[in-house]
């Protein structure tokens, strides 16, 4: 079987298109490359959605932690401690068991033009359940980053804004917010990278893969179990992860450039990879 045929068969296998049976014997290098690459679709799906949803929620949490309202403050602090203080692995297990115990209810959501049936059963599936866990988890980590950045906003900037008569929302959106985002960005880039790496946990914990549709590591482990040779599938998975890590660094670097466009070149913060945020 030629490699192009393999790409047609297994290129979208992880999301349910193409050949149904996974290769069992005479596994070729091409099959490993294609199938593990196909699994990356899941990692990217989890990372993109969890990060974009988590970004907004984490800023709410960060402002909650910085707020003087005791209820908001306590709640945000507790949330951040919970998600940063316990292993993501256990969070996955716990969430899965909790979702399984939920009564099997179905809710019809009327969107006006179409009716969506939201069932609690979906929560036990990785595409929704694992996404929710990753979203909640990254919100906790990112909230801490944004909270620290908020505290690091120069006092002079805020006082200057006050002197110009800016208050409340105007002061926040025009002065605090851009500076906070700029200060937080290098650390947030690291968070994005680590969330991306953490997506590899999704199919290894509570959430089962449905019809052998899993992520890159799921297929890497599959090949390892079939061939007993870890030296091919895991480096392939590592290769894909490094590739997409570089993509993340590139995209976040562009955003960093834009956030820093008004800052003198000597004072700009460059993104430095610091492996200190894994969960």
């Amino acid at each position: 079987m030629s490699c192009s045929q393999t790409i047609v068969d297994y290129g979208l296998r992880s999301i349910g298109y193409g050949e149904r049976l996974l290769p069992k014997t005479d596994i070729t290098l091409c099959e490993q490359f294609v199938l593990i690459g196909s699994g990356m679709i899941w990692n990217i799906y989890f990372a993109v959605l969890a990060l974009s949803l988590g970004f907004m929620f984490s800023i709410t949490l960060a402002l909650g932690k910085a707020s003087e309202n005791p209820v908001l403050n306590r709640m945000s602090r507790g949330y951040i401690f919970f998600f940063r203080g316990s292993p993501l692995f256990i969070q996955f297990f716990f969430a899965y068991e909790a979702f399984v115990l939920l009564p099997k209810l179905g809710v019809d959501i009327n969107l006006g033009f179409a009716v969506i049936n939201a069932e609690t059963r979906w929560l036990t599936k990785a595409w929704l359940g694992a996404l929710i866990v990753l979203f909640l988890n990254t919100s906790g980590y990112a909230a801490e980053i944004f909270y620290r950045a908020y505290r690091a906003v120069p006092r002079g900037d805020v006082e200057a804004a006050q002197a110009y008569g800016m208050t409340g929302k105007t002061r926040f959106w025009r002065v605090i917010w851009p500076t906070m985002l700029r200060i937080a960005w290098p650390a947030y880039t690291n968070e994005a990278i680590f969330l991306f790496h953490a997506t590899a946990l999704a199919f290894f914990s509570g959430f089962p893969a449905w019809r052998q549709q899993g992520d890159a590591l799921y297929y890497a482990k599959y090949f390892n179990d079939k061939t007993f040779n870890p030296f091919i599938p895991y480096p392939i998975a590592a290769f894909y992860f490094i590739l997409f890590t570089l993509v993340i660094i590139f995209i976040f670097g562009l955003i960093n450039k834009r956030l820093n466009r008004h800052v003198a070149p000597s004072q700009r913060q460059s993104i430095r990879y610091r492996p200190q945020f894994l969960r």
Partner: protein
Amino acid sequence: MMSFCQTPADLESFAWFSCYLTTANHFSFYWSFITVLLLVFITAPVALLFGFGGAVAKRSTIAPLRWFGKIYTNMVRGVPELIFFLFVPIALDQAFEYVRYKLLCEDSSAPVYQGNDFVVCAAAKLPLSTAEAWVHTTYNFSLAVLAFAIVFGAFAANVIDGALSAVPKNQLETASAYGLSKRQTFWRIHVPQMWGYALAGLSNLWLILIKATPLLFLLGIEDIVYWAGYLGKTKTSFFAYPHGDWRLWYFLALLVFYLAMTYGSEKIINRLSRRFAKGQATLGANEDKAVAT
């Protein structure tokens, strides 16, 4: 085992629970918590040693050693640590067996990868198939410790390397002005001052190490995740203590365990960082340094 536990079916709920929580399986569960603590306390010093070695190698003037240090410290960038945890123990295991295969087997000409199998002769198996169960357990556990130490050593090497660069140049220049040799400067001035800078990063790693311990489960060790899943499963009336699906509660107990570990560690780290900041001419000396986690 209490004497009244003979017939659990007729017991009241309090007595039932006191019996239920003291079964042999539950003691294995409690023991697995100790395994986790053991792993953390063995891995941390080993990883620190690897990290120190890696950082020193990276700054070495000997080129091959420097390349090795660079490769080692850069290895953890860009790749999920999970892949290392799956890869390193199997790779180490096969490497050990391969070396023994070359040394111990009479006929070591056949390839070890035969189709889909990794084949060595019985004498080269590690541990020997005749070995007792505890040898297998210990061997698997040490492979896990080694895997953790290699990965966290790479992280620690990054931290220590950064801390070594953070020590002010004038300190080292003053040392050489006083006539200290390179070696003396390194051990008496550079390294002692480095710890203060490395503390924040290293305590971060400690918290991360604690949170990485559930990955033991993936290495096939009967750790807390395994036992929580096993004990929590629905037990039918064939079992002495039938109950429904209690996995949620077992995992909740694990969450609480980890949160308590994190909380306690943070308290100790805050105290340590206050002590290390004493006598340092840094901003942090006068205020309580919040430790980044």
